């Protein structure tokens, strides 16, 4: 086996995979930063980069599934807020409209007496229902999902408003479920400190449990995407809906299901966020949909569907996070934290150019 054939085989492997472009970019940028950015080659920075995507990463998985099937969901922020309010109120029995109403309905929760299982059920279930509603409106009206969710975004915001009693929720309690969802991952942090870090080093390790959840979800949904008929259907619908239907794909059902998953993940993101920060407001995470779409696009997904991967999307949001940390650590005077969106803009366009280049080459 000569060098050429090995090289060609390696390249083919990359080029046939949607994550080739983003992965190369991520590795190149990360390695580059390792060398040129002071303080970048630390566990503190690495764990910071990963923790920063703990919420947006989870949401991006759902957005990616939708984008592969050619759809959008612009109504994720109110779902996150809804989940935060429900999960937060019920888990500790906060003195809020939610707790009092549910209690008056005879459900097993009261002020001061939280109910963790019910909190999880509501935190995941209600946003999943909201997502399902998006999907149902989409398939019954045939209005593009961009428009449908632009509308439900406002409607959901209003619903959250009412459910929240128009008040911010902030708690000081720390039930165990918060540790499970997004506590400090100290067993791992301590392991790194004990066996990897130089004892003299003043480096910090700040992994959180949310990272495990994110990794788990990425694996589950990537497998769902590539190994199950449902995943294949999403690709088929996004590639050519008419052809997919002709092949017997139940397009409507698959799309509603994709919206439900997207809502479910938004709900989970809301729970993860509340577990660490213990506060939620009605306008929580406004604009996260666009961050997630940017992540998915940088990660190789196509805006008109039929192409993309959950891996790629994770790589996309990680790439944005790596760039942010690198830029701040570099102390470039004209790109402080407030001018970072410009860096993201350049990244999006450059990444899509690279992705397109690789995709056309691999298909030719």
């Amino acid at each position, binding site marked *: 086996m000569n060098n050429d054939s090995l090289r060609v085989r390696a390249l083919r492997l990359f080029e046939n995979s949607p994550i080739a472009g983003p992965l190369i970019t991520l590795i190149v940028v990360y390695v580059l930063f390792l060398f040129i950015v002071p303080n970048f080659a630390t566990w503190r920075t690495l764990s910071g980069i990963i923790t920063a995507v703990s919420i947006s990463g989870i949401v991006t998985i759902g957005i990616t599934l939708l984008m592969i099937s050619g759809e959008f969901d612009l109504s994720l922020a109110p779902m996150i807020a809804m989940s935060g309010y429900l999960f937060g109120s019920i888990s500790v029995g906060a003195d809020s409209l939610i707790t009092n109403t549910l209690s008056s309905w005879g459900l097993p929760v009261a002020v001061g007496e939280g109910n963790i299982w019910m909190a999880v059920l509501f935190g995941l279930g209600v946003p999943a229902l909201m997502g399902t509603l998006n999907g149902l409106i989409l398939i019954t009206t045939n209005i593009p999902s961009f428009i449908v969710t632009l509308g439900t975004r406002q409607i959901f915001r209003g619903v959250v408003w009412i459910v929240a009693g128009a008040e911010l929720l902030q708690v*000081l309690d720390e039930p165990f479920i918060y540790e499970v969802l997004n506590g400090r991952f100290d067993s791992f942090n301590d392991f790194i400190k004990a066996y990897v870090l130089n004892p003299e080093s003043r480096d910090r390790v700040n992994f959180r449990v949310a990272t495990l959840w994110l990794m788990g979800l990425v694996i589950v949904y990537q497998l769902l995407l590539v190994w199950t008929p449902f995943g294949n259907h999403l690709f088929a619908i996004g590639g050519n809906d008419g052809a997919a239907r002709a092949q017997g794909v139940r397009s409507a059902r698959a799309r509603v299901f994709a919206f439900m998953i997207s809502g479910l993940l938004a709900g989970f993101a809301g729970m993860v966020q509340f577990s*660490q920060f213990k506060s939620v407001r009605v306008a929580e995470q406004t604009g996260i949909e666009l961050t997630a779409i940017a992540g998915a696009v940088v990660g190789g997904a196509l805006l008109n569907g039929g192409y993309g991967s959950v891996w790629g999307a994770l790589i996309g949001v990680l790439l944005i996070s790596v760039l942010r940390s690198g830029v701040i650590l570099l102390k470039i005077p004209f790109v*402080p934290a407030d001018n970072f969106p410009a860096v993201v803009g350049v990244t999006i366009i450059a990444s899509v150019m690279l992705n397109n280049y690789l995709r056309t080459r691999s298909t030719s």
Partner: protein
Amino acid sequence: MKKSTLFRFVVIILALSAFIVACQPQEVEVEVTREVEVEVETEVEVTREVEVETEVEVAVEVEVTREVEVETVVEVPVPVIVDDPNRTLNIIAVQHAECAWDSFWCTVQAGIEQGALDNNVNVTILAPDSFDVDATASLIEQAVAAQPDAIMLTVTDATVFADPIQAALDLGIPVVAYNAGAGPVEDGIGYLTYLGQDEYAGGYLGGQRLAAEGGNKGVCVNHAPGHTGVAKRCAGFEAAMTEAGLGYEELVTTDDPAESATIIGDYYAANPDADIFITMGPNSAVPFYAFMDNEGLSAGDVVHGTFDNSPEITARIQDGTTMFGIDQQPFLQGYGGVTALSLAARYGILPAGPVTATGPGFITADSLGEPAGADAPMSIIAVQHAECAWDAFWCVVQNGATTAAEQMNIDLQILAPDSFDVDATASLIEQAVAAAPDGIMLTVTDPTVFAGPIQSALDAGIPVVAYNAGSGPANDGINYLTYLGQDEYAGGYQGGQRLAALGGTKGVCVNHAPGNTNVALRCAGFEAAMTEAGLAYEELVTNDDPAESATIIGDYYSANPDVDIFLTMGPNSAVPFYAFVENEGLTTDDFIHGTFDLSPEISANIQNGTTQFGIDQQPFLQGYGAVQALNLLYRHGVVPALPVTPTGPGFVTVDNLTVVQALAGEFR
């Protein structure tokens, strides 16, 4: 061959990075030792230069700086808060004169009665039968013996009254002074505040109005030389003249009106360029009018304004001879005294400054109309850039506004966008104007964008007050009535001073709301304090995602390890800050943190020593005060005294936390 292009691309990038690495200078580890200065000077004389720009109509803006010396504050004991804020309070008012024998006091007492009605308070008024300092002092002793929930009184003689007032303070009874007094600092008695006219501001603002009419030289006609209050009026007037580039002189007259008219006439003959006159009350206004008649002068020849009011002054205002009478608003002295005590005794909300200005209130030809009356129905629309639903801070503001509206029987409607959005807020103001309420209260987050909508409200004759966000009518360039809030710059500045006093090398302002001019002022004040203390300063912008923001602060900290002073702009940047502290495993020895605003989490961190202070702008008072100001104007014809009505800054530290914490989230 195309595939090898990609390979070359990768190789080139790797080569490039290797090259950059090779060029990178070796990093040297530097041991950083922090020296903490232990000696802290306790008495610091702060001379602050305050830019006093008030009148919007002044064509040529000349900046005049007024030096304010901040004196050591008299120890004001924290008053006891009543068990049930909803019960009727008992307040005793002790005054040196009364309506029965001095008609001036009828207005004060009307204010007290209206205040009692609006605040659910029983007020008993005690006064001697004639002016008698000793009799008044023993009335104060009687009042203390009755152990009411609060006492309001006139400090006619600070020496004689000191002991009886101290007896009340020792019992935890909140005390305010009204009409007569000089404030707790000058009187040397630790009562909460003095409600009366800001004499300097009266002269200054009056001078600006007169100078705006044009002229050469201003004259302060003083019939009471040696009277400190009157001297302050002249000083303020002189400052306004100097600012406008005009000449100034003080002319002393006597108690004899005929003699005084001649004195003014002689002076005018010797100084024909004098064309702006301000008189200190009826006792110098009456001779002034005689002088005008003697000289055959008419309204256009000289410009005249006066302190106080009388039937003759009212008539002269109506015929255009006199531009204005400056009213100390006795109604507000009584009304405000009751309100201040109710807020202190019920909710622990203390007056922001040692002197609470009830005047100058300018009576002009435009404002001589009748107010709507105490029973008139009234509607107010509040437009704010944030609200309770997504920012805990606003729950307290709204609670203040709704509490006031309920007490005063006002129909209040609150409008706000559902995320920070200047344009959306501007269109809400337009909506509010279209609804034609009796008053609009709003937050001036962006004076440029809001100028148009606010002006359309003023053109429609709707009174407008600003609260929480703004910098006063002069700085905003919009002619609304007053701004209720803290001096944001002073908040950042004083906060920075407290943090710098604890030692440190570099301060960072953590800003989660870039583009908010209000927050920018806080950072600017903080920067000034850092620079003054010889420390470095930087601003760090975070965003709406708390996980991302925590990483941003962490990255910034590792890029700038010398940063050890942090000021956060409220719960939305304090929450990620606490996550950052947890991530870095920092202890309270590693950094010094202060924050604007309060929330349960911030209070908990003040308690455990992580956070030095929360800067409390008394948001309850902003909402409450804005509603009250519009109510007083519309129903009682009382105008806000100053362009900026301070509600803060108040510092919540571990020392007063317990009092504040009991009220946090609702009233504080």
